[in-house]
């Protein structure tokens, strides 16, 4: 008998025994202990029965062929459904109202150029045009590796601010600034890539609740994607092609929503 077998039997041992998670030495020790403790042995037997019944009952689901609609290939260009479709129709109706019928193109299949931009997108594009040409002071607070930028924005806006990492999309954070937006404030983060292409992420409090599709807008040479999610509105703007900007928008969206999901 090894030293570990001499440890007193605990509740955790009994659960691990039920779940078949004890190593052989420990299992022998627990079995011996259970032989001397019939009440505990009865509970363990009952827990095993519950386990078996649950498994038998739920096994058929996992043995079925999976529905075609759940194949990853069929989801690769998914309809963008922020509110789970298993939620109520009322919720779906709300989402539709927020998104607007015109915006309800599938993800990746966005309205073409000429779609009228919303006021927020116009504000974001104006801010982009104003500050992107700035050589000396494109941002108010530089991203210099410290967390000052995040702290400053969070303090000024009174809500946690996520600064997405867009390195995978080829963009480095330059810094950020605050902008007046109606009766509140908007945060604008600026990124650039190796070729000097600058990109902004504009965010501010938006319609509460719900989620919208990515909306595409183009004004001359500037492209923008906007969307709403959980009480925030976001716009990414850059002089780049639609496909690249969409990848950035998706990455930003995944990071700001991924944090809430605990999807680490």
């Amino acid at each position: 008998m090894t030293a570990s077998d001499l440890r007193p039997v605990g509740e955790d041992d009994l659960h691990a025994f039920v779940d078949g998670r004890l190593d052989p030495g420990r299992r022998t020790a627990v079995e011996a202990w259970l032989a001397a403790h019939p009440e505990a042995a009865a509970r363990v037997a009952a827990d095993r029965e519950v386990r078996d019944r649950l498994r038998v009952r739920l096994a058929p689901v996992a043995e079925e062929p999976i529905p075609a609609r759940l194949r990853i290939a069929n989801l690769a260009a998914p309809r963008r459904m922020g509110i789970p479709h298993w939620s109520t129709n009322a919720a779906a109706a709300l989402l539709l109202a927020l998104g607007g019928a015109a915006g309800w193109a599938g993800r990746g299949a966005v309205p073409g150029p000429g779609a009228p931009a919303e006021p927020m997108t116009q504000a974001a594009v104006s801010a982009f045009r104003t500050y992107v040409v700035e050589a000396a002071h494109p941002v108010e607070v530089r991203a210099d590796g410290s967390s000052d930028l995040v702290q400053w924005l969070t303090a000024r806006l009174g809500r946690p601010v996520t600064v997405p990492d867009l390195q995978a999309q080829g963009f480095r954070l330059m810094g950020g600034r605050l902008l007046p937006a109606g009766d509140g404030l908007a945060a604008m983060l600026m990124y650039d890539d190796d070729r000097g292409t600058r990109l902004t992420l504009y965010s501010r409090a938006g319609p509460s609740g719900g989620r919208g599709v990515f909306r595409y807008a183009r004004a001359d040479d500037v492209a923008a994607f906007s969307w709403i999610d959980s009480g925030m509105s976001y716009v990414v703007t850059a002089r780049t092609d639609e496909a690249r900007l969409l990848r950035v928008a998706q990455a930003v969206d995944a990071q700001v929503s991924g944090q809430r999901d605990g999807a680490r």
Partner: protein
Amino acid sequence: MDDLAVLIEPQIPALRRYATALLRQREAADDLVQDTLERAIRAWPQRREGDLRAWLFAILRNRYLEGVRRRRGIEVGVEALDTIADLGADPEAALGARDVLDGIAALPEEQRSVLLLVAVEDMSYAEVAAVLAVPVGTVMSRLSRARGRMRAFLDLAPTIVTGHLRRVK
């Protein structure tokens, strides 16, 4: 996208099983799984190394909880979830015993998820802790409570209450 399919699709049967146990409605469960997979595909570029199964189950559970909260906020209580029969009847139920899935449904969600992930999905306690984002000790205490309640619900065995032994009727 092929790589993604090779990694994620093997998890789909188990995700459907967990979703079905949570919702007890086949269509709704598949909607929840679809929503989970769409979320996972979008968040994939930001996923850090780690346990893929725990990551997917965590997304599913969070989407489920969000949906429950939202429904509560709108008008329908979580209790209004339909129970459906197409899982097949519990063979024990025919003998007069209670349906094990009714027992699961009667548990608080945090206990229900722990028991399902441990007993049905065969996750380690550490993996369950990762799914629920709680310490392992919390998983163990929820598991204890869930098992105690299930024994009582199914009238299976004596339960020790504060050191005393009593029969649960």
